[in-house]
């Protein structure tokens, strides 16, 4: 299990992208998961959020990382984002050190079907502009095109 939850809270902003007509989604490339994307996430509800990582669970069947984000009204919410399986990410060169509490990251993915503050986390962009692709098997990415 993970260690103590980081309590440092740097609130930034969250932007939930509403579906637009021109927004075309497609399945992502060579990725891995234990379930189908459609079972848990809604590809009509993309999300792009920036904030500070509060906790990382580098566990199966999917890694989860949590980010404190602030919406346009200043309300801070802790969001959970799912990535791929640890083994798959490791073979893509993404180790369990890649995302750590305290980091400021931007995450792009899709919201959970139950409307909770959870989402897929297909792409993570760090403050220095680097990004990693943490998606699971058939997860979809906001910029994927059919």
């Amino acid at each position, binding site marked *: 299990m993970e260690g103590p939850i980081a309590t440092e809270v740097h609130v930034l902003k969250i932007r939930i992208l509403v579906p637009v007509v021109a927004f075309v989604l497609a399945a992502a490339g*060579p990725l891995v998961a234990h*379930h189908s994307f459609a079972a*848990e*996430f809604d590809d009509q509800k993309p999300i792009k959020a920036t904030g500070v990582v509060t906790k990382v669970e580098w566990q199966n069947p999917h890694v989860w990382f949590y980010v404190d984000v602030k919406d346009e009204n200043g309300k801070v919410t802790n969001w959970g984002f799912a990535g791929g*399986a640890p*083994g798959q990410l490791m073979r893509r060169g993404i180790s369990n050190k890649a995302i750590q509490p305290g980091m400021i990251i931007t995450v792009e993915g899709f919201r959970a079907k139950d409307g909770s503050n959870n989402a897929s986390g297909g792409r993570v962009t760090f403050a220095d502009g680097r990004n990693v692709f943490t998606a699971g098997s058939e997860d979809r990415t906001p910029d994927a095109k059919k």
Partner: protein
Amino acid sequence: MKYFVAVFAAALLAGMAGSSSLLHAQSEGSSAAAPAFQPPRTPAGKPDFTGTYQWPKPLPGDEIGHSNATIFDRRKFAPLKEGGEAFLEPRTGDPRHDEPRDFCMPAGFPAGPLSGNAMQLFQTKDYLVMVHEFQRMTRIIPLDGRPHQTGIEPTYYGDPVGHWDGDTLVVETTNFKRWMMDDYFYTDPKEYRMHSDAVKFTEHIKWKGPGVISYTITDDDPKIFTAPWSQEFEVIAKPEWAAQGLFEYVCEENNRCPGGKCTVP
């Protein structure tokens, strides 16, 4: 005149035959320069599949899905049996039925080994052990000539027994539950492909070149298809993955949103 035509034709044929022989000789000469591939072998002389590998991948041109899980190419399927058991499992709206994997139920064979994770093979005189990272599935395949088990309940991975046909390892697996055939539902949730409990899967495993194993699965499912059908895949050796080994995979550890309902972290 006929005589000259016949002589000319004979001379022409002889010339062609000679050219053919020459080409053949040249071809043999070329192949002699490049020694024929010799598969790794066990001390007993059998092809040795021990090693770390990528999951079976489709051959160029074969159908691929929207995830990296390998799927069967629908063009390989035999016709469905008229009045046979359903090939596509109807959706019920119950997530436990519609996608049991989301609740950490097993992938089963052959969907499991076709999922996009590393796998490791261990071979002894009497066993081939196939360990796949996804769900840490393990298939222990006896090679000692024993028959299939009897009097056991159907299972997700079936009852495999293997034998050698020259340098090809042939594994026949029976005694299955009706369960998912592959991961095509990742691509189209409406196409949840099944095999029946009468299916026999036969794997033909043989080295085809350095670091490349030919891996053919034959699906003989008399309740669903009119005839057996087969598809060849390739299994690529990944010795660079061996040092790291396979990762633990405990699906229940942090399965946070089964059925689309997320738990509180």
